């Protein structure tokens, strides 16, 4: 029987497990820990136990036909204009690396509108795909996760991939769980590291847990395919290798599948509303003092060709819209440059900036947690420093791109 097992000989009754438990699922009675009905088998007490007295025991489950599954698949998403998305290149290159260790093929799946040419397929091969499974279909002209799930599931049932990877884009975050539920297999969201056991083919999937405060390595031992999503920008973009060869195979969508959801209208995000894609970002927090200082911050952003993000308290105070909120309950950002002004660095905020490149933080409090996430720390009055910075940048006529072209590299 699966459950929490406590080694009475090791337990010292220290109650660290009690304190670590978020659900009152373990209690110490007479200097011995024991699980209660509140236990959800989360493993927090296993981690907290200083003497290794607690373990999580599973029933042995075996699946005999694991060997029937092979190859690593990548769902290669194209954007609304038909171009391959950067995350698809990143994942194909990662899959190449895993496939080399495992000794199997990389298969890229791409669903395009009926008029698509071979450009995307060739690009995928140059990224490292050995085979491209392609459907060109008018039903794919509009992005429909339900249709795509039906297509991917049909292919996976017929061909049995060992691993399937998806980009954690808005589409991927809906598509991958649909496919996992239909195939009744495991799915690990937002992995930041992937490695493979070359013998068993087991995928070690590492992701942030508990609001980014813990990292967890997750495996899917006896269900196939093993599935994971990865956020854009987590893995490096590959150098294209035009000498790499691969096959392009048509894999049409079943003729009976009909779309159910209708797209009534699509509104392209304006640059101002998509801080998630911003290359440069100025993020402001309560340390800027008052709303009247906001124009200084906006001027700084303008001079840097950056967009404005903020912390949750500023949204709650009504200084800026929710679309600007950076963090766990706002937007996760991954700019090349992030200038953080007067942000203390609550853990929920830090979880949203972990993908940022160069981080400069300005804060009055030298002990502020934001400095733990920054490469450059400026201890000082946020408004004074920004005023001087604006003056210095104005003297040089600004740096880098204009706000209307934030995608300059």
């Amino acid at each position, binding site marked *: 029987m699966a459950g929490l097992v406590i080694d009475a000989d090791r337990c010292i009754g220290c109650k660290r497990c009690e304190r670590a438990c978020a659900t009152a699922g373990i209690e110490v009675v007479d200097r011995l820990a024991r699980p209660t009905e509140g236990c959800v088998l989360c493993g927090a007490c296993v*981690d907290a136990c200083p003497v290794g007295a607690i373990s999580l025991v599973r029933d042995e489950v075996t699946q005999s036909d694991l060997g029937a599954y092979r190859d690593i698949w990548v769902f290669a998403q194209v954007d609304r204009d038909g171009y391959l998305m950067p995350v698809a290149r990143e994942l194909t290159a990662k899959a190449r690396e895993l496939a080399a260790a495992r000794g199997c093929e990389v298969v890229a799946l791409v669903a395009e509108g009926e008029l698509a040419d071979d450009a995307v397929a060739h690009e995928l091969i140059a990224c490292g795909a050995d085979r491209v499974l392609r459907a060109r279909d008018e039903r794919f002209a509009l992005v429909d996760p339900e249709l795509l799930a039906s297509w991917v599931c049909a292919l996976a049932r017929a061909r049995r991939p060992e691993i399937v990877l998806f980009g954690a884009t808005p589409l991927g975050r809906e598509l991958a769980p649909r496919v996992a539920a239909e195939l009744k297999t*495991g799915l690990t969201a937002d992995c930041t590291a992937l490695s493979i056991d070359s013998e068993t083919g087991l995928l070690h999937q590492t992701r942030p847990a508990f609001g980014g405060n813990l990292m967890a390595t997750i495996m899917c031992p006896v269900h196939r395919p093993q599935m994971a999503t990865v956020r854009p920008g987590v893995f490096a973009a590959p150098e294209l290798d035009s000498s790499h060869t691969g096959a392009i195979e048509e894999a049409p969508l079943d003729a009976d599948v009909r779309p159910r959801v209708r797209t009534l209208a699509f509104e392209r995000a304006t640059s101002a509303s998509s801080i998630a894609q911003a290359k440069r970002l100025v993020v402001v927090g309560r340390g800027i003092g008052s709303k009247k200082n906001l124009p200084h911050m906006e001027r700084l952003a303008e001079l840097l060709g950056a967009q404005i993000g903020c912390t949750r308290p500023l949204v709650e105070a009504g200084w800026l819209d929710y679309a600007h909120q950076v963090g766990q309950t706002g937007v996760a950002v991954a700019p090349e440059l992030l200038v953080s002004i007067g942000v203390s660095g609550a853990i929920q905020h830090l979880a949203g900036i972990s993908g940022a490149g160069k981080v400069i933080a300005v804060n009055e409090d030298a002990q502020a947690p934001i400095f733990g996430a920054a490469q450059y720390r400026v201890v000082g009055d946020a408004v004074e420093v920004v005023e001087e910075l604006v003056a210095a940048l104005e003297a040089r006529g600004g740096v880098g791109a204009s706000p209307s072209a934030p995608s300059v590299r």
Partner: protein
Amino acid sequence: MHIVVCVKAVPASTEVKMDPVTNTIVRDGGASVVNPFDATALEVALSLAEERRRAGEPCRVSVLSMGIPATEALLRDCLARGADGALLLSDRAFAGADTLATTYALSCGIAHLAKQWGEPDLVLCGKMAVDGDTAQIGPELAATLGATCATDVREVLTCGAGAIAVRAAVDGGTAALELPLPAVLTLAREAAQLRMPSIAGVRAAAEMPVEVLGAAAVGADAARTGLAGSPTQVVRSFVPESQRESVAVDGTPAEQALRLVEIIEGVA
């Protein structure tokens, strides 16, 4: 119309500390709250129900959760805010569930509710839970129920007899989508802010039952619930090395500003 809202109890704080003596992980085992995104889903359900009732159609909002017995108090709070009924799936057999096993348990709960109140027209979830952060339950439920699905919904546009129209985040922007019912929606925070409970609501909720059922009572196959029904396993957890080495930029504000310009230009 029958609307089911799935809610999860999450720790009020997701802070994690290292015990300096034993070098082990200490999670703050404090109070639980309703996952904030699920609170938004509840508000959207309550508003839709009010709208349907104004149009002369009866509408029921059921709140559904899988959790420890103490979750009952949070469900009662949902009743105080206007939900019509609550079902808590609580059983050791549900413990240790990953998203697939959770989805299965919730689908059993939904089937149980459907027996009493009819198949749900809408199932609403938060777009993710702040502790697990996977955003998988909504789409997995849609696939399991055979329902249509929209994720990261920012706004409900219209809701008629057979379909609902929403504005949802999609790649590259937002889209207005029309989904035939039954549909599963996952809600973003900006869709709504949960109302406060009224005093009358709190009084009424105190008298209302929260149904608490185990796996067998909702007809769940034990092999598909909890740890046993979870394909994924956490094999290791560790505290990330998030602390970056940082370089101090010292001097007067003017000196600091000039140095920052150099640093920024290094990026350009």
